[in-house]
C-alpha cells in the first residue's frame, strides 16, 4: 500500500442488526493534514471511529468489512489499547478527565512514569513507584506545547471547560508515538474564543506532522481549519473535497441533502422597545460558578423574543439560572410590577415562568424515564395537573398524561417511537423538543430557554428555532433565549442583550452591524464610541 498516507480506510462496510450503517466508506489522511469529517447525527461518523479504535461494540455486533491501513500497514485493531499502541489518539467530546486528580495525573493516566523499588523488583512491575517529578515535567512540556500556562499540579475539578479540552489534547500529544489524532466535536462545548484557541492549536499540531481527523458540526470551523473535507450521509461518502474547491453553503447542502435557508424571516420583526414591560430585573446578582452575574438591570417586553448573547464565562447563562432559583441570587425581579421571591424555583414556576436548561442531559431530562413522564413531570409536581385525586392521595392519570404527550409530540414534531420511549434514546434535537414540551405544559407567560441548539445538528437546529419563532408569533409567548451563537440569536430575536463581565453591555437590534456586535461582545463598545464622540 501507499505509505504516504497516515491513515487509509478502504471500502468499509458495517451492518448493525440488519441495518446498514456504513456502506463502502473510503477515507485517506496524510501526515500533517487536517481532515474534516462532516455529517449529520446518525450519518455514521461515530461508527467509523469505533471501527478505527477497535471498540468492543464493533466486535460484539459481528465486526466489519473492509481494510484499515496505518502508515501503509494493514492493521486489525481489536481494542482501544491496540489503537493507542499504533499511535492513534482521540480527543473526546465529553471529557475523559478525573476531577479529583491533578492535571499531571490526568495527562499521565495509565501511562505513569515509574521507577523500580525494592519490592517491585521481587513482585513485578505493577508495584513500581510513581515518578512524580518526571511525570510533572512531561506534563509541563505538553502544556507548554499547547501554550497553556496553568500549573500542572492544579486539580482538574476547578478548571473552566475550555481548559479541560486542552488537557485532553495534552494527554494525547504526551504519547510519544502519536501519528493520528481524532477530534470528536471538540468545539461543541467551547465558546467562540476558546474554540479559536483550539483550532490554532490544531494547526500547530498538524504542522509538526501529526495527521488530524476533525469531526464537527460547525462549517465555518471546517473552512477555517481543514485541508480536506469528507462528507458522510446515511453511511456513504457523499463527497471528498479540497477546502479551496468548496464553500459553506455547498458543504451544508451536501451534509443535509436539502437546501438550508440561512436567511431569516426578517418581516414582522419590528423592535419591541415600545411594548409594555412584563418582567424587570434590578441589580440582579447570581453566583453561578464560571458564569457569575454582577448586577444586571434589564426589562423584558411583553411578546418579544429577547436574545441574551455574549462570550462564555461572562454571565449570560447565569441570568436564567438565577431567576429560576438554581443558584444563589440577589437583587430584585418584578413580574408585571409584582416583586417575586428569589431563590425559590417553585414561586417562579407558579408565576408562569418556564425554563429550558442549557444542561439538557444533566438537569433538563430524566434520561431513563419515558417521554410522557418527562413532559408532564413539572406540571404534575407544581400545579397538580394530570393527577387523580382520591382524598389526600394522588395518583398519576396515565390516560390524560398520554393524550397530552401525544398532542405535544405531534405539535412539536418530536421524532420518536411513541410517548413511552426513554428520552435517553432520542437524538439531541428531539430531547430538546421534549424539554420545550415540558416547559410549555406549564403554560408559561415567559419562557427562558438557554442554549437551545447546543450539540444539535444543522437540520434540527433550524427546526428548534422555527418552533420558538412559531410559539412567539402564534401564542404571543414572551421568550428569553440565551445562546452562544450570535447567528441564531440574530435569526429570530427582536432585541439582543449582550452581557460582558457579568454586566449588561448593551442592547442591539438583530439588524445592527457585525462590528457593533463584535465590539459589544468584547466589552469594547462604549469605549470605542466614546472615543469617536
Amino acid at each position: 500500500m501507499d505509505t504516504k498516507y497516515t491513515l487509509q480506510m478502504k471500502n468499509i462496510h458495517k451492518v448493525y442488526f440488519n441495518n446498514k450503517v456504513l456502506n463502502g466508506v473510503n477515507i485517506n489522511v496524510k501526515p500533517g493534514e487536517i481532515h474534516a469529517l462532516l455529517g449529520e447525527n446518525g450519518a455514521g461518523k461515530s461508527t467509523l471511529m469505533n471501527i478505527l479504535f477497535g471498540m468492543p461494540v464493533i466486535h460484539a455486533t459481528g465486526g466489519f468489512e473492509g481494510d484499515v491501513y496505518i502508515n501503509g500497514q494493514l492493521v486489525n485493531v481489536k481494542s482501544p489499547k491496540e489503537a493507542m499502541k499504533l499511535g492513534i489518539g482521540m480527543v473526546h467530546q465529553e471529557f475523559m478527565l478525573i476531577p479529583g486528580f491533578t492535571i499531571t495525573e490526568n495527562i499521565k493516566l495509565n501511562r505513569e512514569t515509574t521507577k523500580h523499588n525494592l519490592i517491585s523488583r521481587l513482585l513485578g512491575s505493577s508495584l513500581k513507584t510513581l515518578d512524580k517529578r518526571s511525570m510533572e515535567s512531561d506534563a509541563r512540556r505538553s502544556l507548554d506545547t499547547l501554550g497553556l500556562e496553568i500549573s500542572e499540579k492544579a486539580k482538574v475539578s476547578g478548571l473552566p471547560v475550555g481548559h479541560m479540552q486542552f488537557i485532553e489534547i495534552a494527554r494525547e500529544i504526551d504519547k510519544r508515538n502519536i501519528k493520528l489524532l481524532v477530534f470528536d466535536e471538540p468545539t461543541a462545548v467551547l465558546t467562540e474564543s476558546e474554540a479559536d484557541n483550539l483550532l490554532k492549536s490544531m494547526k500547530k499540531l498538524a504542522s509538526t506532522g501529526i495527521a488530524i481527523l476533525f469531526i464537527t458540526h460547525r462549517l465555518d470551523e471546517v473552512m477555517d481549519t481543514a485541508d480536506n473535507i469528507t462528507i458522510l450521509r446515511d453511511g456513504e461518502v457523499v463527497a471528498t473535497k479540497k477546502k479551496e474547491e468548496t464553500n459553506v453553503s455547498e458543504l451544508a447542502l451536501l451534509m443535509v441533502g436539502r437546501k438550508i435557508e440561512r436567511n431569516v424571516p426578517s418581516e414582522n420583526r419590528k423592535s419591541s422597545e415600545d411594548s409594555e414591560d412584563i418582567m424587570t430585573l434590578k441589580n440582579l446578582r447570581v453566583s453561578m460558578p464560571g458564569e457569575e452575574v454582577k448586577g444586571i438591570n434589564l426589562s423584558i417586553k411583553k411578546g418579544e423574543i429577547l436574545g441574551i448573547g455574549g462570550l462564555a464565562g461572562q454571565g449570560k447563562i447565569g441570568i436564567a439560572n438565577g431567576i429560576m432559583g438554581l443558584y444563589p441570587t440577589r437583587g430584585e425581579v418584578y413580574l408585571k410590577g409584582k416583586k417575586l421571591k428569589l431563590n425559590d424555583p417553585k414561586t417562579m414556576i407558579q408565576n408562569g415562568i418556564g425554563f429550558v436548561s442549557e444542561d439538557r442531559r444533566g438537569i433538563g431530562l430524566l434520561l431513563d424515564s419515558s417521554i410522557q413522564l418527562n413532559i408532564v413531570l413539572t406540571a404534575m409536581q407544581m400545579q397538580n395537573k394530570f393527577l387523580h385525586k382520591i382524598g389526600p392521595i394522588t395518583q398519576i392519570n396515565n390516560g390524560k398524561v398520554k393524550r397530552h404527550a401525544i398532542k405535544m409530540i405531534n405539535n412539536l414534531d418530536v421524532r420518536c417511537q411513541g410517548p413511552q420511549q426513554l428520552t435517553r434514546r432520542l437524538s439531541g434535537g428531539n430531547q430538546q423538543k421534549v424539554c420545550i414540551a415540558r416547559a410549555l405544559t406549564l403554560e408559561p407567560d415567559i419562557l427562558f430557554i438557554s442554549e437551545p441548539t447546543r450539540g444539535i445538528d444543522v437540520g434540527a437546529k433550524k427546526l428548534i428555532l422555527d418552533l420558538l419563532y412559531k410559539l412567539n408569533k402564534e401564542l404571543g409567548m414572551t421568550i428569553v433565549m440565551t445562546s452562544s451563537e450570535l447567528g441564531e440569536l440574530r435569526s429570530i430575536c427582536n432585541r439582543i442583550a449582550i452581557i460582558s463581565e457579568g454586566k449588561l453591555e448593551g442592547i442591539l437590534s438583530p439588524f445592527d452591524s457585525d462590528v457593533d456586535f463584535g465590539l459589544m461582545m468584547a466589552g469594547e463598545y462604549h469605549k470605542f464610541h466614546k472615543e469617536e464622540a
Partner: protein
Amino acid sequence: MANVNKLKNKINNNTNFGEKIKDVVMNNIVTIIFVVLCLIGIKLSGLPIFFVANELVTRISRNSFLVLALIIPVLAGMGLNFSIVVGAMAGQIAIIAVTHWGITGLPGFLLCAVIAFPFAVLFGYLTGKLLNKTKGQEMITSMIVGYFANGVYQLVFLFLVGTIIPMKNNVLMLSSGVGIRNTIDLSGGVKETGIKYALDQILKLPIFYVLIAFSILAILYNIFKLTNRRGIVNRREKQNKSKDSFKYIVNMSMFAILLILSIVIVAGNTPLKNIQLPVVTVIVIGVLCLFNILIVKTKLGQEFRTVGQDKHIAKVAGINVDRIRVLAIVISTVLAAWGQLIFLQNIGTLNTYGSHEQIGMFSIAALLIGGASVSKATVGQAILGTALFHTLFIVSPLAGKNLFGDAQIGEFFRAFVVYGVIGVSLGLHAWKNRAELKRKLKIE
C-alpha cells in the same frame, strides 16, 4: 478563567478563622461525637485509667489489622467491604486444620497464615467476580455474600466434616463423629494445643518505654529530614519546602509532647507504666499500615484510585477495571484472613460458628467512627476509629450499670452503637456531600 480565579480568591478571603473551625468540625463530626461519648463513658463507668488503657492496648492490637483490611476496596471505589467475613472464614479454616494437626505456637500460626492464603485468594476472587456483576451495589452485595458464605461454612463444618471430608479427632469434633464442636480451645490447659498468643508472646515490653524509644527515633528522623534539604532550585520548590519544614516541625513537637508525657508516666511510677505492649503484633500492624500507605504511591495504587474515581474513564484509558476491582477484593480478603488469625491468637478460643460473624460489622463501624467514609479512608482513621470504638466497648457495660443500674443497658448501647454508627455515617456522608455542594455555591 479570570472569573474562576476571582471567585476562588473571594472564597479564600472570606474564609475567616471561625469558618475554618466550622469546617474542621463539620468534616470530623462523627469522630468528635464519639470522642465526647468515650470521655463521658469513661467518667460514668468509674473504671481506673490503668484498666481502660490496658484493655485498649490489647484490643487495638487485636482488631486493627482487620480494620486496615478495609482500606483498599474503599480506595478502589467499592465502598465498605462487608465480605471480609469471608476472609475471616478462610482464616478459621486454616486454624481448624492446624489445630487438628497439633501444630502449636508460632510455627502453627505461620502455617495458618500460609494455608489461609490460597483459600482467601479463591474466596476473594469469587467475591470480586460477583461484585463486578453488581457494580454500584457493592456494599449490599458484599454483605449478602457474607451471610451466604456463612451458610456454606456451616454446611461444611457441621455436616461434611466426618462424612465426605474424612477427619477423626475426639477433641475437635462432636461426639457423633460428624461436625466440628462449637468452641475450640486454642491454648488448651496444661499442654498447649493451639496458637494462643503465638504472636503476642514473642516479645512484650512496657508500652511507655517503647513510646519513649519510638518518639526519640521519630524526632531524630524529622530533624534529619529538616536539615537534609539541599539542592533547592527554583522558587516554587522553595515554597513547597517551606511548607514541608512546617510539617516536620509540627510532627516534631507532637512527638516531643508524647515523649514528655511518657517520661512523666514512667518517672511518676503510676500503674500505667506496667501496661505491656505485644511488640511483634504491633510491628505486623505497622507493616500493614505502611503497605496501605505505600501502595498508593505505586502504579497499582494509582490504578486503584483511578478506578475508584471513575470506572468509565479508567476503562477508556486502558485500565482493566474488572481485574483491578477483583484484585482489590482479593487483597482485602487475604488481609482479613490474616487479621482473623491475629484476632483469634489473642482471644485464645475459636467460636467455630460465631467468631467470624460480627467481624464485618464491627470493623466497618470502627473505621467509620475514625472519620472514614464510603469514598475515603486512611490508615490514621482506621487506628483512631479502632481505639474509640473499643473504648466505648470497654466502658459501656459499667457506664450503663452506673447510670441505669443495669449492665444490660450498656450492652444494648453497644449493639446500638455498631449498627447506628454505620447508618448514621452513611447518612452523614450523603448529607455532607450536599452541604458541601451548597456551600460551594454560596460564595458571598
